């Protein structure tokens, strides 16, 4: 089967520091994959390379646009990558704080709409329709993630957990094929985390979106992911289903510690 996202030998150096070291990675349709590893292992950097935030120093990243076509996305600008169907959230929440919740999501629609300055000034029928569709599409996404009640609130006034979900909603508005979530459960309490798990599963089942997530909450990772990739010092040290990873001595040594169940 064709992967949606195909990564070969991805490498990223910062000066002397090799933050991502020769990583191979594929993600397929309707998959939920977790990326875990100690702090500073290079997980976020991996995301940044894939989404065009950084220009990788080595390796190839391909996005499969349809059955036979794949496009190399190394060094493409982030907005181009997003147009190709990869959308992400950020480890430290980066919302458009002064805008309303709905507007935040509508920014996600930017790359799927077309109005330019002139047509916006003229505001003809087509533009009015586009505006309306973009607003209602965004609103439906808010309904899906349960934020519709906040639609007209200013984003920074939202509770923290809602802000996390808003980041996801915003990414969804770009109609991604693969959603990359960087520590979506950080700072959430267990109830909120469960809620988040339901949303992610719903996205996969109903919207056919594949999800790649970085997370330190092992409870969540084990519950949700079909496959786990473990990084340490920029390298991939293990890959496999949750049950296997939990027992992997390397992973236990580098990351999990001895009795993981006590925490989860």
């Amino acid at each position: 089967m064709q992967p949606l996202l195909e990564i070969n030998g991805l490498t990223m150096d910062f000066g002397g520091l090799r933050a991502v070291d020769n990583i191979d990675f594929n993600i397929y349709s309707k998959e939920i994959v977790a990326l875990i590893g100690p702090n500073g292992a290079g997980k976020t950097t991996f995301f940044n390379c894939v989404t065009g935030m950084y220009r990788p120093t080595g390796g190839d990243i391909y996005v499969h646009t349809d059955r036979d076509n794949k496009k190399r996305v190394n060094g493409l600008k982030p907005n181009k990558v997003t147009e190709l169907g990869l959308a992400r959230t950020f480890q430290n929440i980066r919302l458009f704080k002064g805008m309303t919740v709905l507007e935040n999501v509508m920014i996600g629609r930017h790359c799927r709409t077309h109005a330019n300055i002139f047509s916006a000034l003229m505001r003809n029928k087509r533009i009015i329709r586009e505006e309306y569709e973009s607003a209602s599409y965004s609103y439906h996404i808010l309904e899906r993630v349960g934020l519709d009640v906040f639609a007209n609130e200013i984003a920074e006034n939202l509770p923290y957990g809602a802000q996390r979900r808003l980041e996801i909603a915003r990414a969804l508005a770009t109609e991604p094929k693969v959603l990359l979530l960087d520590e979506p459960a950080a700072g959430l309490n267990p109830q909120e985390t469960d809620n988040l798990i339901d949303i992610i599963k719903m996205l996969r089942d109903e919207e056919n979106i594949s999800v790649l997530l970085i997370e330190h909450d092992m409870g969540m990772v084990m519950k949700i992911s079909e496959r786990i990739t473990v990084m340490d010092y920029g390298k991939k040290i293990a890959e496999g289903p949750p049950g296997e990873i939990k027992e992997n001595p390397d992973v236990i040594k580098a990351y999990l510690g001895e009795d993981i169940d006590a925490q989860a």
Partner: protein
Amino acid sequence: MFSEIKKSLLVSVWFMFLTFPIMVIKVNTIENTIIWRWENLVLIGLGSFFLSFLWRFMHNKKATKRRQDYKDVLSKLFYDNLIENKKVFIPIVAALIIFILLFPKMFSTYQVTIMTTALIYVVLGLGLNVVVGFAGLLDLGYVAFYAVGAYTYALLNFNYDISFWIALPLAGILGAMAGILLGFPVLRLRGDYLAIVTLGFGEIIRLVLENWGEFTHGPSGIAGIDRPNFGFDLSIVGSINAIYYFVFFFVLVTIFFTNRLQNSRIGRAWVALREDEIACQAMGVDKTKTKLSAFAFGATWAGFMGAVFAAKTTFINPASFTFLESAIILSIVVLGGMGSIPGVILGALILILLPEYLRAFSEYRMLIFGGAMVLMMVFRPQGLIKSKRRRYNLESMSKKKLKERQNAASS
């Protein structure tokens, strides 16, 4: 009470010390004479003593205002009503428009002239507001585009006798092109680095105008620029009034356009870019295009107004396009309330009319103006009117509610 007096006394002593050399002593280093103006010391002492009470009173008021939230909510409601309640808002705007239309009939030509100047700055303020207020790009060289517009008309008129109406769109286009020209190199820059480069750009334009004598007539400027021809012969007063109406019309157009853009795909992208550049790109917004469009759109208005300015004064030289001018336009935006269209309008009216009405204070005029700028910022740091985001009507968009309605209808 006693401690208040003590505080004020301290302030008073401090200011007497502070202003002592400059206010009291005047020396003549050639003739070696010294004049002591002790009366000034007394003035400063008394002045600062009493003003310090006022200062603290105002600060306390500012602080308590923050505290008494319920009161704030009330005033907020009132303000919201004003803007959002069409019943109140429309009559106010209508009254305002009638007032503005009748303005030349009611006041002297001088009032009309300065009002025209103020309205020109309203447009400039709204244009810069797009760059600074919406897109968050700190532009300290906005006056450059204004100069480009002004010289476009002046030179075309001077050299080829081209009429205002043909030159006006050209001025706008050239302004936009200058905006793009500036935009390209500075796209990578952030915050205050952008500020200094735009400042430099403004200076470069002015210096070129000053030094390239063969083309721009250098510092002596271009005189005898034609006033716009409105299709019928006008006296000077008539022509001043006509320009006034034209500029007012332009203000309306600008408000209409910026307001439209503010809540469009591009306008949202501008604001998002201001809020978080990185997230914005990750959401699929093309940073380069969006920034350039903000620069170009903002610059267009400056270009238009430049041409109007040249037509209005009939004479231009580089002295009108100094950094201070950019600073004033920026102040209009910030003082009015960044991103807020009514705020910017108010800011322009205050900052441009204030020095004119302060003429009564003659030499103290600019002193008061500078002081007023500081005080306005200190006591209204968010600007006069805070910008508001658009609220959407959600009812019509909700699928859930639609379904409920359908269910209700079918059952």
